[in-house]
């Protein structure tokens, strides 16, 4: 019981720090910072990953080789290494200091972009070849067919995988801690440094916070997977067209 009481006290005294960090007196931090990093990171990584996947599948070596090289490098290097490289190298390259947040965001975009591009590439390659052939036979250009026929299907099919990648990203933001990004882990550590005697309590709260966010997203992923699977079987209607689908079900043979 005292454990739970202590947890309550810690949360009661520090919830704002865990939620938004020292904002507005300092940079926006806590779980909001974690989520902003993840959402913006994935948000920027996504278009990059689509371009990289298309470059990876391109018949032109000039596009294919650099994209392939980047993917192999990123897959072969731990994220922490990339963070340190960006942290120390980028200021040298551009001649001025960059905030930890920006460093972390750039790192995530490169790193997640490379991983997501493999997801997108798999999604494109998993489609039957006949889809591209049919589009080309109708006169669409390669890019036109990608845009109107291939990508809408591939990205839709890959939604669950992309959401899993988002969950990984949330967990990877914790590494921002080493370059002083004031995200959730940083905030928890601040609290721990104040209290000094309750590390187990503090990091228990931290673990539960991450778990709740990631677990909910995983549940969402599974729900999406089921929905997509049933749609592929031709059972589930398109969203927002219940009435129309009902009439179709009535008419359809079988």
């Amino acid at each position, binding site marked *: 019981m005292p454990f739970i009481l202590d947890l309550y006290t810690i949360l009661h005294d520090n919830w704002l720090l865990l939620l938004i960090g020292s904002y507005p007196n300092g940079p926006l931090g806590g779980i909001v910072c974690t989520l902003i990093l993840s959402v913006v990171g994935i948000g920027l990584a996504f278009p990059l990953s689509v371009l990289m996947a298309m470059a990876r599948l391109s018949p032109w070596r000039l596009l294919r080789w650099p994209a392939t090289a980047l993917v192999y490098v990123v897959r072969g290097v731990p994220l922490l290494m990339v963070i340190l490289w960006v942290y120390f190298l980028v200021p040298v390259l551009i001649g001025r200091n960059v905030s930890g947040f920006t460093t972390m965001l750039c790192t995530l975009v490169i790193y997640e972009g490379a991983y997501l591009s493999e997801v997108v590439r798999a999604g494109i390659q998993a489609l*039957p070849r*006949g*889809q591209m*052939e*049919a*589009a*080309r*036979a*109708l*006169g*669409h*250009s*390669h890019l*036109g067919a990608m845009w*109107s*026929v291939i990508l*809408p*299907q591939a990205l*839709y099919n890959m939604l669950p995988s992309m959401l899993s990648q988002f969950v990984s990203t949330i967990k990877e933001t914790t590494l921002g801690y080493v370059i002083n990004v004031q995200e959730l882990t940083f905030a928890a550590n601040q609290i721990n440094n104040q209290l000094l005697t309750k590390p187990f309590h503090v990091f228990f709260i931290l673990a539960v916070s991450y778990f709740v966010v990631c677990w909910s997203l995983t549940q969402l992923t599974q729900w999406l997977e089921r929905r997509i699977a049933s*749609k*592929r*079987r*031709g059972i589930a209607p*398109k969203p927002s*067209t219940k009435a*129309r689908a009902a009439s*179709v*079900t009535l*008419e*359809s*043979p*079988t």
Partner: protein
Amino acid sequence: MITFSNVNKWYGDYRALTDINAEVKKGEVVVVCGPSGSGKSTLIRTVNRLEEIKSGQLLFDGHDIQAPMSSYQLNQLRSRIGFVFQSFNLFPHLSVLENIMLSPMKVRGIRRADAKTRAMELLERVGLSAKASAYPAQLSGGQQQRVAIARALAMEPPAMLFDEPTSALDPEMVGEVLAVMRGLAKDGMTMMCVTHEMNFAREVADRVWFMDAGCILETAAPETFFRSPQHPRAQRFLSDLRSH
């Protein structure tokens, strides 16, 4: 309309097409038949350059298919060659109507409203107006293939190519697709069909091309071909067909 002159195609060391010389005239219905692996599908796929040829010349509606051209020109040329696949290849993320409207809008730049009117007319023609808002997965194989035909017709092609359009269908659905194709033939469409439906060939075709091992061994009017095939391989093929 479609002219093959000395067309040769190789897959590595394997010669897929050997010295093809043949012509599909305007308004003519040609059925290409022959045993599996004889090169029928390869032949029909060379017409819109889904398969590249090694040598020879291929004319479609006066255009040299093989001539060096920009990818834009190739796409415009392809858009005028109606092609129907064995496996339908409808776009599953689009409704039936959108499947038909997509290419006229994207490739030809036709306005949405006009594309829709035209698509509805075509659905009427293949007998599927009621399914306009359905998705491909909700249709039977026969219905999907009829939509695929409507989709090809939406580009107003001067000729239609059919690559085994009924081979992936359950037997009871073959008839509805052949009926649509018959209708097209009656309206004077130039057609080149790879098919195993010999009754269709007998009734609808103006010419039958018999292929084996990458060569056209015999071309004849269907009544002649089915009554008295000349080439021994064609005789054996037809008697194999009759024996079951």
